[in-house]
């Protein structure tokens, strides 16, 4: 029989990467801050123990807490975070495949540029939909809003992206195909 810690470790392994990714995108690429907040979210879940959410709800609970913590983070110390991330990046170990790393970094930069166009509510809703594949009902639960608002936010986010990026990408893709 698994101990509580084993169950928690499984849950941690399952959701930590996706939570970090969500937070990193939400925070505009601040990886160190994202990892901090992800850790803090899991710590709160762990501390909650039996008072915490049921296991089936843990994922939504985690994303909700993490997003609230990220909002706090967004409201202060942007410059500090960016500086810290640069320092961390500078001292990060060398990558094995620089070319692949470069491509991945480029892709990340494109996504980050896209997401920066969006207000936080829309960004969070779109990320939960596209990365976590949550339904509108689940997103509404995480963000503590109505499903109708989720629907509107996701649509507006896509429209906004289309205004700035869709046509550019479509035309670039069309030119490449010709």
């Amino acid at each position, binding site marked *: 029989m698994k101990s509580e810690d084993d169950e928690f*470790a499984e849950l941690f392994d399952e959701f930590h*990467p996706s939570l970090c990714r969500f937070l990193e*995108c939400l925070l505009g690429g601040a990886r160190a801050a994202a990892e901090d907040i992800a*850790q803090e979210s899991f710590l709160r879940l762990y*501390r909650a123990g039996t008072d915490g959410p049921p296991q089936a709800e843990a994922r939504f609970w985690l994303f909700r807490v993490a997003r609230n913590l990220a909002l706090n983070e967004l409201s202060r110390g942007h410059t*500090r975070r960016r500086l810290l991330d640069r320092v961390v990046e500078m001292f990060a170990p060398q990558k094995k495949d620089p070319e692949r790393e470069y491509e991945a970094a480029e892709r990340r930069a494109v*996504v980050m540029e896209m997401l920066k166009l969006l207000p936080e509510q829309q960004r969070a809703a779109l990320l939960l939909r596209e990365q976590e594949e949550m339904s509108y009902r689940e997103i509404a639960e995480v963000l503590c809003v109505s499903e109708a608002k989720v629907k509107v936010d996701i649509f507006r986010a896509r429209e906004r992206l289309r205004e700035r990026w869709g046509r550019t990408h*479509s035309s670039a893709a069309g030119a490449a195909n010709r």
Partner: protein
Amino acid sequence: MSCDWTEKVSLLVDGELAGGEADAARSHIEACDECRAARVDFLLFRRQISSYSAEASVAARRRALEAILSSKTPAAQARVREESGAWPSRAGWRERVAGAFARVRLAPAAALLALVVVALGLSVYMTSRRETQTARDTSFGTPSRESASATPSPSTRSDAPTGGGALKEKEDERVAENPSGKRVGENPSEKRAVVAVVRNTPPNAPRMDRRRRRTQSRDATQVIAATEPEQKSPRVEPSLENVGGATTASAAMVSDRARVAPLDAGRHAEQAQLLLRSFRNARLSDDDLAYERERSKRLLYRNIVLRREAASKGEARVEGLLDRLEPILIDIANLPDKPAKEEVASIRERVRKKNLVVSLQAAAPRRRDF
């Protein structure tokens, strides 16, 4: 200008349209160039956003998990039980008294007073006991304890009075005797401890602020306590959750210090880093920083011990870091139940200025160096 159906397209790609609506939207998309383009764009965004990879290192994830799992202390568990009301509290008299002290802000004075009263009581008791013993020895002519001992300890004075001695001689005995029956300073470990106390307060030491002095005095209490014989209680985490405040904990420390689990400085740095992050991210409305206060109290003891160890080993870098951390731990531990925002903000600002989280983060993984 976009088509009115574009919103339906958005719902369609998300699978949020019911059967009939979905069919209608698909039919429309076939006929409408604008909606077809919108669908292509929406799917392109999906591919780009979902392809984003965070790539957190496995080692970092392991460390994070370890740090979280290690945070499950008896104190935290007890607090969760108390809050959840899962079963009734079985706090002992000491916890209840400490809890009562915690509710009022007179805790430091009360703890000090309690300590003084206990010390006086012990002194009076020892005096009366010795006088009774002396009187009995004198009355009945029985030999003194020292001379009666079949195998006298090395510390037994050969010229010990056998009865009715001068007051000074009695006092000498009192000072010399401790529960192990040895003189303080004769045991090598005691000697080291006493020397450490002396080193804690060098005569030419610079003037310290009040907080620092309080910390030093607690150090001294611990060191003196270390001269007592080791208790045989199990070595478990100290249960400090019910102690009123860090500066009021002297009495509790005397009884709890022997149970402080050994911990290496690297792990301590990890836990302190976790605490500072938690403190930094906590909302005042959440739980009034109760968790952070308790954790600070616990880490404070270890910090003091580890700082002294680092000092004795000549590890200046470690000592410096722990020295910077200590006042922060004291301040967090001493926060009231409902701390003012300014107070919390001030501590957070000091943490930021001292760059403590980054320093601790840098120190934590390199346990060998740290």
